[in-house]
């Protein structure tokens, strides 16, 4: 009996990393602070200890507090903070405790010092409430304040400003006045020197365009039909009571009821916005029209775009391809690439809001690393743990995932989005791709006269289909095998070797 054994194989070679001792260096020659590097990379005279930076006193991370601005930054090494005249603390210092800072009819959830600073910038009294422990509660407190007209005498004239009851009655010096809740300064009954105008204005922290009275105060939301409406210039109207409150009013010349979440915001008129019937401000449309994928998106929406050649989520991404997240910012489509070598993938979902659906995308880590170690379909497809796909019937002989193995689960587990490899340098790519090496022994039995006896065992291994299937698994691993690149061009080489040899003859 004669046995002819043939095989296709690539040898594996593993390398072990040589680990050298590092030091925690206070400052490197390249100017970085607190890095674990080789001793020779440390700047002359800089402190260095053969330990992790976290274990040193000078590079230990903590909170850096800026007493001038009242801001706190975490994860700052002690020496970096001190060098910048900050106050370093291992744990959160009391100065970094947040509270609610009321700034007129606005609010900020900040530290006390920051609150003082912001109030100072706005010329307001500091109103800080440390009892409020969440940002939402803080914002609600500001919204819930009574607002109205504050009438006071200034330079022998009865004038007025729009503010909160607190600012009006507790304000400093001659800014104290009589408060009229819900009234506008232009109200005739207040008998002030403020009256209606055709001018409009934008307010800090507000989306909408507002009418402006002759004293420069913001009145109600701009509505061209209410220009001479006495009631509209007398009583404060809510956003819902104002024009077209259910839409964003982007580039509307007649209604200034802008809605930032809906994609419009108060801006000065320009060639791109068109003109307002009155005044120089308009609800500028911030949404993106006809983006790269042909769809329209709202300002702040983000979505995934994969226009590289090849496919995604099917285990055959093209070489050099990567994921992109697109964001609509102020009417402009801005691209953000996810990590190189497809170490991140773009994921997308929709948020359901009162204004409709809002697409949101993010670059998320591609968890392909332990795919080939999974032998069961259920583990392979566990999306809580990894991003892999199950290929039934396939095998990876180099990893002993073969039909004959005891723990063979009926297929192999491969990355859903294949990792990119630096195949042009180093030997990792070769080692990694070698996981797809396979050897098939075809057994042909001949009789004494040299005639083939029966069907050869594994004869299909000699066929093109077998070769293509194995090359496919090769590609499913990463930048291995006969891939195309991200613009769709094939490589100059086949991407794999097939060796057919006579194994032995008895």
């Amino acid at each position: 009996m004669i046995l002819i054994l043939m095989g296709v194989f690539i040898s594996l070679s593993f390398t072990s990393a040589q680990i050298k001792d590092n030091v925690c260096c206070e400052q490197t020659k390249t100017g970085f602070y607190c890095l674990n590097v080789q001793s020779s990379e440390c700047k002359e005279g800089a402190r260095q200890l053969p330990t992790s930076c976290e274990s040193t006193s000078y590079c230990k991370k903590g909170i850096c507090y800026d007493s001038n601005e009242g801001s706190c930054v975490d994860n700052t090494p002690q020496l970096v903070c001190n060098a910048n005249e900050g106050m370093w603390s291992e744990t959160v210092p009391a100065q970094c405790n947040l509270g609610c800072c009321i700034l007129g009819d606005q609010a900020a959830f900040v530290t006390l010092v920051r609150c003082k600073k912001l109030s100072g910038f706005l010329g307001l009294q500091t109103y800080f409430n440390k009892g409020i422990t969440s940002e939402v509660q803080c914002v609600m407190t500001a919204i819930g304040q009574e607002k109205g007209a504050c009438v006071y005498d200034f330079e022998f004239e009865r004038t007025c400003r729009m503010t909160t009851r607190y600012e009006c009655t507790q304000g400093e010096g001659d800014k104290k006045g009589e408060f009229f809740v819900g009234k506008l300064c232009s109200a005739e009954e207040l008998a002030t020197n403020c009256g209606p105008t055709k001018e409009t204005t934008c307010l800090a922290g507000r989306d909408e365009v507002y009418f402006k009275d002759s004293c420069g105060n913001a009145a109600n939301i701009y509505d061209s039909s209410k220009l001479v409406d006495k009631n509209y210039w007398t009583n404060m109207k809510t956003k819902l009571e104002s024009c077209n409150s259910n839409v964003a009013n982007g580039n509307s010349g007649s209604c200034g009821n802008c809605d930032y979440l809906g994609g419009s915001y108060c801006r000065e008129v320009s060639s791109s916005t068109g003109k307002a019937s009155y005044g120089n401000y308009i609800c500028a449309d911030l949404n993106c029209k006809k983006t790269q994928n042909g769809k329209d998106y709202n300002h702040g929406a983000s979505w995934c775009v994969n226009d590289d050649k090849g496919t995604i989520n099917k285990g055959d991404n093209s070489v050099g391809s990567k994921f992109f997240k697109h964001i609509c910012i102020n009417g402009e489509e801005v691209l953000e690439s996810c990590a190189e070598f497809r170490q991140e993938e773009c994921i997308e979902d929709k948020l359901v809001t009162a204004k409709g659906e809002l697409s949101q995308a993010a670059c998320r880590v591609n968890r392909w690393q332990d795919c080939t170690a999974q032998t069961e379909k259920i583990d392979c497809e566990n999306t809580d743990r990894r991003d892999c796909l199950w290929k039934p019937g396939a095998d990876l002989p180099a990893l002993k995932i073969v039909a004959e193995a005891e723990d063979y689960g009926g297929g192999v587990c491969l990355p859903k989005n294949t990792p990119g490899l630096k195949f042009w340098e180093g030997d990792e790519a070769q080692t990694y791709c070698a996981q797809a090496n396979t050897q098939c022994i075809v057994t042909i039995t001949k009789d004494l006269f040299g005639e083939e006896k029966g069907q050869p065992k594994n004869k299909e291994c000699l066929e093109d289909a077998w070769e293509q299937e194995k090359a496919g698994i090769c590609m499913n691993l990463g930048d291995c095998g006969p891939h195309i690149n991200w613009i769709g061009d094939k490589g100059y080489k086949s991407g794999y070797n097939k060796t057919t040899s006579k194994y032995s003859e008895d």
Partner: protein
Amino acid sequence: MQKNYKESILCKNMSLNKKGQMTIFIIVAVVIVLALLFLFLFRKNIPSLFESGLNPNEYLKQCVEPEVKPSVEILADNAGYQEPQAFVLSEGKKIQYLCYTNNYYETCTVQQPLTKKNFEKELNLMVKPRANRCMKNLIAEYEKRGYEVSSEKIDSEVSVIPGKVLIRFNTPLIVTKEITNKYSGFNVEMESEIYDLLFIAQSIVEYESTYGDSASELYLQYYPNLKIEKTKMSDGTTIYKLSNVITKEEFKFASRSLAWPAGYGTDQIKEAK
């Protein structure tokens, strides 16, 4: 009768008005002629505002502004550093890292926690010499125009505040020429939205150091005029370009946090070791 009486009274008043007007015109004309004569003869000794035409605040603003704007731009282009130390090269430009790790799979260590403070420090280094020179020039200008000037040590300070770059000239001046004007100092303001960009950068650095990345959309909720552009490089570095869509001001910096190697990264780990 009644009507006629009223009319006659009216006519009488009108004739009186005409005479009065004439008198006023003559007086005004004489005053103007005398004033012009006085100005012409004694103009060197008159310490009037319109004669000197020198508005100290405006003078200082015009003098210092050409230095401030380019300096802000240079610093903003380099994360607040005149000469970046720890940087990455992007399109031939050095971009300073504000947060960095040389390892894979780990978040970065903050390299500059107080972005605004550092920006002001560097801006002072760039602008102060010019600002002090401007102050000296102002004094010289006053002296040239015949004023007696008394001043203390010349000093200035640049700070960044919301919506502005503020240059404080902390030099009290006493300017005398018949009358004395006292100035405790001068403040020159220039519109700039760099303050917000600096604090956003600081916040992003904190995000990067905690989570390894930041979400641009989060900042858009709070800052309608903000545009964030992130460029990822093959070594895991992210270059941030923050800009104000209205003023077009920009602030650039780099961060390397939670970087991933190609494949399992055994080659890179070997290199790093």
